[in-house]
Structure formats: C-alpha cells, structure tokens
C-alpha cells in the first residue's frame, strides 16, 4: 500500500497545480479534499490536478475531484486534470466522467487551456 503524496505549486497567480502520488481511496481522499478547499479559500480558484503519479483511484477520490470541480466553478474558476495513465483514464471513461472533466496529457497543455485570471 502506498500512501497519498500531495505536492502543490503555484505557477501563476490564481492557479495551483496539485501533483499526486500513491493511492487515492476512502482513507486518503480527505487529505486531497482539504488541500483543494484550502487552495480555493486562498484564492487559487484554478486548480490543475496531476494524476500521472497515481497508482490507485477509487470512487471516493472521484467524488473529491467532482466536489473540487463544483467548488472551483462556484468561484468562477476551473479544475483540469492531467493524466496519461491508461488505467486511471479508464476509470473516468467507464464512469462517464470524461464528459465532466477536462483531461490533458501534460501541465503545459492544462495551463494553456485555463482561462486567464
């Protein structure tokens, strides 16, 4: 079992990149939720969540990401995902969440598609 690793960078004003590693499940997802809530409350309303280092993602992790997207949009921001891991992408595809989330292959693409602050 690999615990969740969370690293956050702020490449520009109003934008935060959350780089995840390990497992996002019922035990670890509250930490991710708190990180996103804290960033949004500090005015980082555009979030990019990098899932490329994730080894496991379950429905509670998906729920946290959905909640983060809702909260970001309530603040007129956005949440984009970075993922080129086929196993993780498949979870989004089979749940239909590819229709909800914008998913990019790398950070440059995600940053380029965010609306200007």
């Amino acid at each position, binding site marked *: 079992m690999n615990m969740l690793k969370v690293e956050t960078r702020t490449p520009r004003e109003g934008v935060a990149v959350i780089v995840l590693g390990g497992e996002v499940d*019922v*035990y670890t997802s509250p930490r991710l939720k708190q990180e996103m809530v804290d960033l949004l409350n500090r005015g980082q309303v555009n979030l990019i969540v990098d899932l490329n280092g994730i080894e496991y993602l379950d*429905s509670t992790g998906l729920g946290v990401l*959905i909640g983060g997207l809702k909260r970001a949009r309530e603040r007129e921001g956005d949440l984009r995902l970075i993922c080129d891991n086929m196993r993780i992408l498949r979870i989004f595809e089979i749940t239909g969440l590819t229709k909800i989330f914008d998913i990019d292959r790398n950070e440059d693409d995600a940053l380029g598609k965010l609306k200007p602050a």
Partner: protein
Amino acid sequence: MSTSDSGVVVRLTIPGKPEFVGVARLAILGVASRMRFNYDEVEDIRLAVGEACTTAIERAQGANAVAHELHVRCLIDLSRLVVEVSDSMPIPAVTELPKTESILDERCLGGVLIRILMDDVENIEDPDTGGRGVRMTKYVASPVR
C-alpha cells in the same frame, strides 16, 4: 483457506475502518493474480472489492456503527472468482448497492463501478446475523480444461 465442493475458499476479516480497505485490496490482488485473469481484469477485481468495502464502511458510518467488521469471502474455481463482501450488523442497507446510478452523484459512483467492473453482482443477506453485503463474480475468459 478452506475447500468447498466447487473450489477453494479464502476468507479475510478486517475492521470496518477506512485504513484497512487497502488490506482487503492487497489480499484480493493476491487471490486474483493466482488465477487466469489478465492484468486489467485483476485490477478490475481489486477496484470492485475496494469499492464494496468502502460502501460498507461509509454506510455503517452513516448509521453511527463504526465498530464493526467486514468479511471478505473468495470462492475460487477454474472458471470464476466469486467475492462476497459483507458485515454482520443488522442495520438497514449497510452494503446494498444503490439503485440510482447517476454519474454526477458521487455517493453512487462505487455501485456504478462495481456493476461495470464485475460480470455478475447481487446483494446478499445473512439470515443468521442480519448482515448484508454484495456478491460479485468475475468469470475467467479461457478457463483451464
């Protein structure tokens, strides 16, 4: 581990707490990896079992019944793996799968995933304990003859 008329049975009991779901996932990974499933199928089974445990824990927490155990029972035979995840608490609908399947309702995502990832899924109930759970079956695509 024990044997039944139709295969081998592996049982695991874990505390009904979030930090132990990973233990159940590791155990099922070991069981499924010994069968003729491919990598994606093993990962599907692992995720489904994790979701079943998570659903049980979240609903028990909702009923303020955190001090309980989850029972994972795996029936292994040449053609299929049957996994039951259940508890022994006679409280309503502890691990039953939700009937609604909206992808935007994060509370239902676990049930949606289980139904997609496994071949057969049904709710089960233990008449002796009143406990409830889910039985999930994954068939081996090309079983050994």
